[in-house]
């Protein structure tokens, strides 16, 4: 063409995504709800890593916590109660280019969605799972959840929860092919951010249980830890969740834990006297279902047609 060189290139203007570009509708959670800080931690991490908002898919179930995607500006899939994990795996299966987050609650994940939880951990696809544990069914107004403490009264158990709570950490650690298990708390933003970042960095299914305050229904639940920081046990390791020195100093109760040590991870995860935070376990070599099923991705139409014709031909008479 006249006036144009055969080889030319226009550099696209470098794109700088601001924090505002990750923000969606105004969050409608109660004031003081721990979900607010999880939301801003995710938005900040996405901004810091400059993940284009259109490459993020946030899948959630149903619950207060599952309103999360509406408050992001990204692609979102606010699915059904208990079902975010199959959807998240489905999104990822043929679209490795997308950053997939799954947001679930303690009821959503550990009760109605428990089957999917077990299997999503085992599939170990490259997704980030945040389980926001407020120890109660928030959205439906305060019923006992699988993680509600023994004896704690709720609207479905006015005389107190009849069973000891399910421990989401030991359960997850017990699933074959598990590759990343961490715990953090909503009220320590630096630790929360560092954990979410590490979870997203991990290539595989990362499971993060966030101890989440629900001032509306369970203001008492994590009160001990809020009053006295020594109730929180910081697990430390160079391969774990690493905090800035100043933040680290604030948590006096610390323990060294190598995230390759599954046995020790179990022991720590089972502790009920403290809230251990940090990385329990990481196995970068666990089998990735998204990788082993990636065959066939990117076949051209003519390759596909060839294969289909061949398949049909086998039935020819």
């Amino acid at each position, binding site marked *: 063409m006249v006036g144009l060189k055969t080889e030319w290139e226009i550099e696209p203007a470098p794109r700088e995504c601001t924090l505002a570009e990750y923000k969606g509708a105004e969050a409608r959670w109660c004031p003081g709800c721990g979900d607010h800080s999880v939301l801003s931690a995710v938005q900040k991490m996405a901004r810091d890593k400059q993940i284009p908002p259109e490459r993020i898919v946030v899948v959630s179930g149903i619950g207060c916590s599952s309103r999360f995607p509406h408050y992001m500006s990204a692609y979102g899939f*606010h699915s059904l109660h208990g079902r975010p994990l199959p959807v998240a795996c489905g*999104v990822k299966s043929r679209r490795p280019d997308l950053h997939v987050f799954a947001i679930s609650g303690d009821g959503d994940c550990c009760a109605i969605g428990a089957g999917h939880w077990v299997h999503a951990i085992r599939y170990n696809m490259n997704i980030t799972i945040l389980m926001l544990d407020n120890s109660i069914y928030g959205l439906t107004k305060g019923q006992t959840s699988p993680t509600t403490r023994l004896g704690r009264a709720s609207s479905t158990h006015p005389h107190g929860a009849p069973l000891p709570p399910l421990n989401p950490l030991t359960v997850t650690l017990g699933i074959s092919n598990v590759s990343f298990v961490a715990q953090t708390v909503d009220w320590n933003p630096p630790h929360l951010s560092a954990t979410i970042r590490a979870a997203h960095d991990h290539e595989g299914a990362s499971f993060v249980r966030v101890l989440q305050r629900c001032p509306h229904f369970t203001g008492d639940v994590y009160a001990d830890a809020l009053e006295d920081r020594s109730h929180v046990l910081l697990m430390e390791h160079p391969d774990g969740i690493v905090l800035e020195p100043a933040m680290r100093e604030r948590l006096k109760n610390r323990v060294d834990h190598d995230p390759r040590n599954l046995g020790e991870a179990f022991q720590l995860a089972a502790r009920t006297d403290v809230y251990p935070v940090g990385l329990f376990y990481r196995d970068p070599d666990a089998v990735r279902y998204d990788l082993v099923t990636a065959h066939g991705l990117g076949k051209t139409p003519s390759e596909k047609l060839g294969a289909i014709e061949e398949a049909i031909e086998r039935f020819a008479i």
Partner: protein
Amino acid sequence: MGAELVTEQSTARAAVEVSEHIVEIVSDSGEGAQTAGQMFADLCARSGNGIWTVEIIPAEIEPPSRSRAGASGNRIRIGSSRVTNAGDEADVVVALNEQVLYSRIDAGALRPGTIVYVDKVWGESRDPEVRARYVEAVEDFRRRGYTVIETPIESECRKRTKDPRKGKNMWVLGMLCALYDLHEGTVRDRIAARFGRKGAAVVEKNLELFSDGFRWGLENLEQRFHVHAVPVETPTVVMNGNQALALGVMAAGIEVCSMYPITPATSASHYLAANFENAGGIVHQAEDEIAAIGFALGCSYAGKTAVTITSGPGFALKTEFLGYAVMTELPLVVVVVQRGGPATGLPTKIEQGDLMAALFASPGDSPKIVLAPATIEECFHLIITARRLAEDFRSPVIVLSDANLATGQQPFAKPEPKEAWLAGPVDQSDWDSKVAPMAWDPRTGLSKRPIPGQRGGQHVLTGIVHDEWSHIAYESGVNQRAMAMRSRKFAALASALKPPVVHGDPEGDLLVVGWGSTLGAIEEAVDRLRADGRRVSSLHLRFLSPLEPGLKEIFQRFRKVTTVEVNYADDPDAPLINDETRRRSQLARLLREHTLVDVDCWGPVPGSPLPPGQIATHLATKLDELGRES
């Protein structure tokens, strides 16, 4: 080998010309009657006969041997022209023991005159009880009027192999080829193709047993038949309905089949699992049916149309997500290969009982597209249509097949796959952020969806009531409008459909309406009655939601309209049943509501395909009643 067989043919009796025949092969499960039946059908089709096959399946994997419940095998209807259904009673049954034959007698598969070849080895058993039961049964068969030919199947096989259980079926295949005057040179190829993976020795053994059976047949069969065949000239394929579905999935460019095993749907996924990869797809075996549809919807949201394949009980589990797909306008193809219900029902047997479930099983008003293939060929082509409709109408599309189509084999014109059938590439161009993710066209309700990765198209799908921006909105006006827009799509689709074609005269005394796998049997019944001068026609629906247009007008040209469908209806003459209390078959209910015509129904649920003869008898009674009324 072909040549060797042909020379020996001269010693054999001449074959009697017949226009069609129905053959059954039954054995204990694991003795290979199904393989022999499929191969026999395949050979007949290759020589140019029309065929239709039905699998005879026991409920357990290894039921007790020599038991009535354990019959496993195949029915093959062979014709000199196209065969559209399994027909009435069998002309010939080969039974590897007398007990399995009883299950076919119980199923009404035999008539006086049916020729029964039964293995006489049981009459020579060392176990006196087995001997006695055999002798008693053979006498009983003769009393029932069957022509019993006690055949030395096992003893002949023993001359060749120490373990006849593993080879009797090839001997029987040889005998059947002699019985039906087939002397195809391709037998060797077919046996090699079938058993090649097991090694040359196995192929050789099977070939020998085949030849032994063939030779024995030529030398000993008193009666032989020939079904005239017209050599196949246009490219043709033979397969069963589940294979056709699977190939349709590939040809539609679907990339993910997300499923959980359930009979009789699973074999479609088996076929895909073995072949999908080359066409760029995967089979995801999920942890349950809910996860299977959730995974499929995730794929679909990410821009790849997915299919989930199941049967009744699995479909029930999917219904919450199905409603979600309606609400969020996510494309999805759901294949339901129906079996008998409710609950576990009849896991391996045919029923058409999931029509209402397909239409209404989700909470709230959740209209979906529902299609039903009527032939094996349509199992292939309707999947391609379903994918396109799912995308264009942003809707789940349910394809209702059934156990009869799933395992029935039929030849049809070889499909020529086209690039246009494949799903297009995922659009990743920028999305104009001023266009809503559900910018409903007010006339048709249609809209275009942004796909993750498209810059500017960010939005959040939600099952909660939402406006065109997919923003949660509880205001009553929004709900009213959103419901109307989702509903409008169905009027838009209906307006694009052609009215159904009436088989027979466009007017008359009785119109029979059917759907799904009953097409061939209904039309055959109608043709027989019309040949007797009865004024009956039929009509077969492929679109069940939305319904094909013009039904009321067509119905009004007949004195009476009835459905014939394999789902339960109260017998109008049963105690307490009257016009008000009668529960009718599902299509009949739908048509009554849709047309306000007093549509009658016939809904037997025998767990087997409806034979054309039974349909004709029933219709004749209805016509007689009409005759008396006038």
